[in-house]
């Protein structure tokens, strides 16, 4: 009877140890992913170092589903740069090109006008009521790099959240069955 008790003890302790180990591994994976994300935010200086193109206003250069890598430095914005900016009252940032820049002598403040490559008119219609120009503080980042098609995963997960749940379920299943 003693050795039954012993073997049960060893199996139980191993089960607890195993599941703890799994839990910690999962926690490490999640934290390392977050570390990479925050690290990217620091290196590039932008709030959102990777964005997905959602509209067709920059075609044929950027199609829906492409990823843009952003960078933000203190250099003043000049014409031609592709910038990502936020408008008050809209929660989705916009990726367009700068077509006009006026830099004030006294304050160093810059006034910016943008336009999407595929649009016919400039973005004044999109700006907030009474706003005719963008300022440097509205700009989240400049696009410096580009990867095609990779953003479709994010678009699909946003538009059909059921796929997100299926993926989480599948990954969770893989975690549980991997040690078993």
């Amino acid at each position, binding site marked *: 009877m003693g050795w039954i008790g012993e073997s049960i003890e060893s199996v139980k302790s191993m089960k607890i140890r195993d599941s703890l180990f799994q839990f910690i591994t999962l926690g490490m994976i999640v934290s390392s992913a977050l570390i990479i994300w925050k690290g990217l935010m620091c290196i590039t200086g932008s709030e959102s170092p990777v964005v997905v193109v959602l509209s067709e206003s920059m075609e044929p250069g950027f199609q829906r589903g492409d990823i843009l890598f952003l960078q933000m430095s203190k250099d003043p914005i000049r014409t031609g740069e592709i910038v990502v900016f936020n408008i008050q009252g809209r929660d989705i940032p916009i990726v367009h090109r700068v*077509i006009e820049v006026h830099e004030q002598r006294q304050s160093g403040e810059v006034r910016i006008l943008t336009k999407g490559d595929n649009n016919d008119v400039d973005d004044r219609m999109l700006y907030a009521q009474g706003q005719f120009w963008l300022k440097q503080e509205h700009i989240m980042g400049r696009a410096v790099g580009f990867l095609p098609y990779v953003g479709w995963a994010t678009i699909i997960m946003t538009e059909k959240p059921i796929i997100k749940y299926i993926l989480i379920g599948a990954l969770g299943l893989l975690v549980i069955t991997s040690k078993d």
Partner: protein
Amino acid sequence: MARDSGIWQNSFIFISVDFNFSLRPKIKRQQLQQRQGTKTGKKKKMHSFGYRANALLTFAVTILALMCAIASLSDNLNTPSPSAQIEILNINWFQKQPHGNDEVSLTLNITADLQSLFTWNTKQLFIFVAAEYETPKNALNQVSLWDAIIPAKEFAKFSIHTSNKYRFIDQGHNLRSKEFNLTLHWHVMPKTGKMFANKIVMSGYRLPEDYR
């Protein structure tokens, strides 16, 4: 771009990628244990479809990322030698708007040879002509007058007559007999990777002294 939910989607993608990469050493360790003989004695499905698919996917994504990076790096080997000339053929009109801002309309002749900028990794070239000048109030003004997309190398050598596509409006009425530069900018948009931009500055242009 979905910003708030985007952060979660992006974190999720990171987590799943990270997970795939960390699962591989775990599988190797389990295989080692299997050969040494473990205590549980259960038969583990080591060669199941799930593990194979996971390993394959991770490998494929790694190789794809590597290829994209190499493609982007190959763009640095290209040494471009572009040339351009812009001529102002005519000042169509030069007026003061009701709000008090000056506006001018020009006809330009733009000649350029940008063929050397194209590489195998180039999707298109976005070019535009901007007028640069300074005023008492503004240290720098840049106004884009015309732009175009060049989709392939054959179209990169061209000469066109055009009036300005976008309105040349000043902040104020400082444009009379103003000296300005015309710059031809180009943005190389790659198939994957880093984007390049540069410009040619042409100076010596001048607007007329009076409104017409």
